[in-house]
């Protein structure tokens, strides 16, 4: 199966966050291509995440600009058409 590119997916994460790792593993398992933004590496990325998602906790998955907080599997499945 080819990697899916039909949705724009961004994962905001930090290095030591177990749920961030879980969500990225889930996306990879379902062959979803995503951009991984580590907000612990620079302040502007963190500020950008807060501005775009109004969240100050990770993980946040941005699917076609819609923020999903935490590892919300049902919502991720629905927006990405994962069965």
């Amino acid at each position, binding site marked *: 199966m080819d990697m899916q590119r039909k949705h724009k997916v961004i994962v905001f994460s*930090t*290095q*030591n*966050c*177990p*749920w*961030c*790792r*879980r969500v990225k*593993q*889930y996306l990879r*398992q379902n062959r979803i291509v995503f951009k991984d933004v580590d*907000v*612990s590496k620079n*302040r502007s990325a*963190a500020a950008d995440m*807060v501005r775009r998602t*109004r*969240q*100050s*906790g*990770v993980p*946040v998955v941005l699917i076609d600009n819609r923020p999903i*907080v*935490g590892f919300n*599997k049902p919502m991720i499945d629905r927006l990405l058409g994962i069965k």
Partner: protein
Amino acid sequence: MMDIQFPKDNADLKDKDKEFDVIILGAGPAGLTSAIYTSRSLLKTLIIETGVIGGEAASTELIENYPGFPEGVSGMDLTDGMKMQSEKFGAKIIMTYTKEVNLKGNRKVVKTDDGVFSAKAIIIATGSSPRNLNIPGEEVFKGRGVSYCATCDAPFFKDRDIGVIGAGSSGIQESLYLLKFTKSIKIVEFLPHMTAEKILQERIKKYENVEFFLNHTLKSINGKQMVESITVEDRKVGTDSVLPVSGVFIYVGLRPNTKIFMGSLKLNENGFIIADENLRTSESGVFAAGDVREKTLRQVATAVGDGAVAAFSAKEYIEGKSSTD
């Protein structure tokens, strides 16, 4: 951080692969240790994890009281090692949601989003989760200033003033980590004293930018879109104060992950599983290990001890049962 290998797509499992000697629910330190022991007893072992590998321990930035690591070890590294060790001896791990369990009878059944699994014995090591305070503002500001994971969310609070609720070992240990980022911390504790390990108390007292609100109750978390302040009540005189903070980290104890066992196992009044010294529960062939059971001290060190005992008891049960089958 090492990038661990997760199991392949769970859907790869064939029907014949769904029968095990032992199913372990939960891949925290207790469950992973159980798996090391059962696998080395050549019992066909499956670990089912709904959340994250390593459980609550994985989100602990530095574990300093686990023997063998004089400089401390990150919770994620420690539990990654336990995972690899269990898989090395043959345990299989799947990441899926457990919907229902049937613990009665000779064949224990676990229904998940990825199919139905069964085993001769079950070890419950589902652990516990951070307890909520259920006060105004807590739910609405989750992820908007309210957090239960300092290692995850600390970078958002660089040079900010924050509150930490709870002066037990978790609250103080995580405060010491948060101080690498934040401008100041206000520590709010319901009791008139800290309950953290003494070494942690001594360390936190050295910081001039830490202010203590002992014998105080957190009444509400306030703000518009994000957290702006907390309201605390002085329990001695009954007066309220509003403290300006942009983040609140909550460490007020644990609640057991035992919802799916209600009605089928004996639990205590707080929902923790009651087990005997061999970690046998009220149901034959079902064992409990780690934070999920009623015990006095919930630490990685005690969880791994539980894991070993539960695995031994499960092995004894299976061998005894096999001889009488």
